[in-house]
């Protein structure tokens, strides 16, 4: 009797295999988002280690620590991994986790498609890394891809790229791209269709707005890469002539196709950072964002213009002066909406009651560093200037300032900001500040001297260099900077591991923020919201906390 009558009160803790099953079979946007971010961070460590090996090799002139072949594979895998296996999944992870919470929805629009996208990305990444083992192919004459992350033709043709490394590059990136594409479709459908009552487009958080524009960019920019990759695969596997210069094929066409994807791609990567900064800055300045509409319009303008600037990567190949002029002008034009954004973030801070917790610190550094990146970007947009510095370390310095100084700093701001929501524990503030200052120092020490190295004429992608050209000191400084960055990353990893176990309990709303994700418990339950909220302004939690002075009276 008792055996039948007593309901099971205490839930048995899940066994390890149950846990694994729950993660592997999940369609929950929060679990998938977490898996995206975790995998992205693991790939980040991997690609960071590759970069560190390159820095060790370049620390002193005439170094023979790493062979030229290995060096080629290192920079190829470093770039490919950082863009496709760190940047894109980080973006997808943040968007997956946060967008339904911010919109007052219970999941993404297509949960199963979401899971499919994640696994496609993960196995795409594994396939790319399998090239270290299987890249030799039948001839045994290859390893991981060594053709650079933009895989310029004709280097990728069968004649010059023996073995299967390039094929792994194609198929792995296509699979990972499929993941990005599905999450873009999912984000668009979620944003359009699953907004909670009252969440009009004008009330939508800026994070969601920017990810919406971002997803649109993914939608139109990623398929061109896949198309070009299909052509390359036909060339390599079926003997096609697309990029075979011996048979009338054009190596230049690959460059166009690649950068039609590649330039929107850098905006695709920087948008999540913009999105995060747009959420963090107002909350830590205790002010609503300055010029909300202008921010949205600027984002759309960037999305629009960024599709017509690609050939500024190709000034040095000898296009017509009309093309050069067009792409130079378009590239400079994009500085206008970007400038609007930077000024609006500054105006949000201006007169605010600033709180310098780690998320805000990373945002402040983001503003300075991204500004520097933008300014060197304008310099490179001037075609004659670009002719001087094309393929030099100046370019490396420029795009690492956008992608590390911009994207990575933005994502760290986001991790410090949303970690309490995701885990229910605060990240340690003191360790966070140490991480910030050490990382900031290491980052600038690594990448600032690169600009000067570029002026001094050091070309990119050389595995070593001769002494006596004034390149020794900057190179040594950069390697020291890289080591300092590594220390900072270890500090961050330690902070995460420690805080998950021993962190201070966060509560639902540790930052006194205004968007809907802070209205549900930390960590959010599987269904997110017990009752679907109703929204009347762009700061629904402000309305809730200040019923005597709600925002919707003024909007």
């Amino acid at each position: 009797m008792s055996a039948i009558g007593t309901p099971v009160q205490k839930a048995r803790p899940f066994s390890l295999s149950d846990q694994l099953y729950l993660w592997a079979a999940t369609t929950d946007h929060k679990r998938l988002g977490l898996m995206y971010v975790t995998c992205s961070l693991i790939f980040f460590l991997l690609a960071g280690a590759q970069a560190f090996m390159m820095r060790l090799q370049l620390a002193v002139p005439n170094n023979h620590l790493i062979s030229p072949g290995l060096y080629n594979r290192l920079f190829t895998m470093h770039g490919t991994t950082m863009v496709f296996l760190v940047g894109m999944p980080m973006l997808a992870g943040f968007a997956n986790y946060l967008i339904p919470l911010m919109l007052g929805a219970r999941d993404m629009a297509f949960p199963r498609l979401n899971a499919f996208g994640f696994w496609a990305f993960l196995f795409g990444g594994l396939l790319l890394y399998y090239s270290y083992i299987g890249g030799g192919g039948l001839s045994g004459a290859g390893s991981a891809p060594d053709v650079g992350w933009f895989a310029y033709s004709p280097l990728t043709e069968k004649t010059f790229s023996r073995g299967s490394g390039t094929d792994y590059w194609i198929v792995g990136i296509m699979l990972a791209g499929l993941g990005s594409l599905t999450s873009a479709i999912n984000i668009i459908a979620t944003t359009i269709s699953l907004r909670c009552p009252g969440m009009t487009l004008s009330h939508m958080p800026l994070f969601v707005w920017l990810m919406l524009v971002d997803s649109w960019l993914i939608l139109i920019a990623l398929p061109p890469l896949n198309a070009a990759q299909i052509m390359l695969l036909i060339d390599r596997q079926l003997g096609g002539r697309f990029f075979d210069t011996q048979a009338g094929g054009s190596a230049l066409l690959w460059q166009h196709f690649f950068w039609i994807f590649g330039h929107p791609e850098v905006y695709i990567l920087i948008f999540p950072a913009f999105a995060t900064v747009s959420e963090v800055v107002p909350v830590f300045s205790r002010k609503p964002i300055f010029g909300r509409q202008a921010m949205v319009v600027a984002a759309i303008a960037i999305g629009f213009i960024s599709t017509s600037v690609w050939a500024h990567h190709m000034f040095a190949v000898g296009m017509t002066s009309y093309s050069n002029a067009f792409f130079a002008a378009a590239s400079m034009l994009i500085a206008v909406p970007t400038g609007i954004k930077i000024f609006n973030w500054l105006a949000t801070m201006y007169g605010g009651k600033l709180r310098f917790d780690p998320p805000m610190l990373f945002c402040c550094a983001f503003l300075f560093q991204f500004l520097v990146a933008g300014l060197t970007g304008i310099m490179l947009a001037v075609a004659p200037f670009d002719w001087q510095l094309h393929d030099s370390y100046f370019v490396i310095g420029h795009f690492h300032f956008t992608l590390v100084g911009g994207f990575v700093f933005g994502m760290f701001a986001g991790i410090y900001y949303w970690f309490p929501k995701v885990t229910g524990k605060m990240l340690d503030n003191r360790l966070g500040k140490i991480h910030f200052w050490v990382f900031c120092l290491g980052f600038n020490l690594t990448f600032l001297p690169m600009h000067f190295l570029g002026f001094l004429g050091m070309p990119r992608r050389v595995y070593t260099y001769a002494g006596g050209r004034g390149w020794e000191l900057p190179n040594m400084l950069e390697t020291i900077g890289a080591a300092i960055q590594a220390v900072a990353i270890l500090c961050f990893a330690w902070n995460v591991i420690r805080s998950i176990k021993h962190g201070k309990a966060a509560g639902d709303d540790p930052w006194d923020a205004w968007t809907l994700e802070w209205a549900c418990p930390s960590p959010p339950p599987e269904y997110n919201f017990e009752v679907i909220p109703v929204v009347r302004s762009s700061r629904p939690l402000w309305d809730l906390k200040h019923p005597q002075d709600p925002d919707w009276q003024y909007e």
Partner: protein
Amino acid sequence: MAGTADALIVQDWRTPDRGIAGVLSFIVAEAALFSIFVVGYLFYLGKSLNGPYPDQVLKTPVLATICLLSSSGTILFAERALHRASIGVFRLWWAVTIALGAFFLIETGREWYELIYHDHLTVATNVFGSTFYGLVGLHASHVTVGLFFLLIVLIASLRGFPVDTQRRRITFLSWYWHFVDTVWVVVFLVVYVIGK
């Protein structure tokens, strides 16, 4: 008071169907994919260093084109029949759509057979071969995928599955089919009109 206002907001709240947003996004991505192949084809016109050249070997597939384009009409008739809940008529038009699509594929196959065995044009022969088989093949693969899904619906319907409960999904499938047909208009113009 806030409660009443909330209730009013909830009452009037409508958002678009997530399927519409999803399918349209998917079609945009597909269009971007095709556009690169089309640009590639146009760019490589007249760049082949050796024959066969397009004007020597290509024959305009008039009948296949008529069949594929009219299948956009027949799938529309099928949908309308479904809205009137006349399953028999739906099955008929749906089957006609499949037949037209299959005929198109068979014609493409015959064209390719002719090109490969008679004119010795393969994907490796010259730039024209690569771009031709690339573009037309990409389109044909989309027709194949479309046919596969159309066939699933037909089989389900014949086995008694109440397809009229799935009107929304069938509409989305028909959009995909219309898209594939539209792409053929572009491919046809580029390959058989401009390119010849």
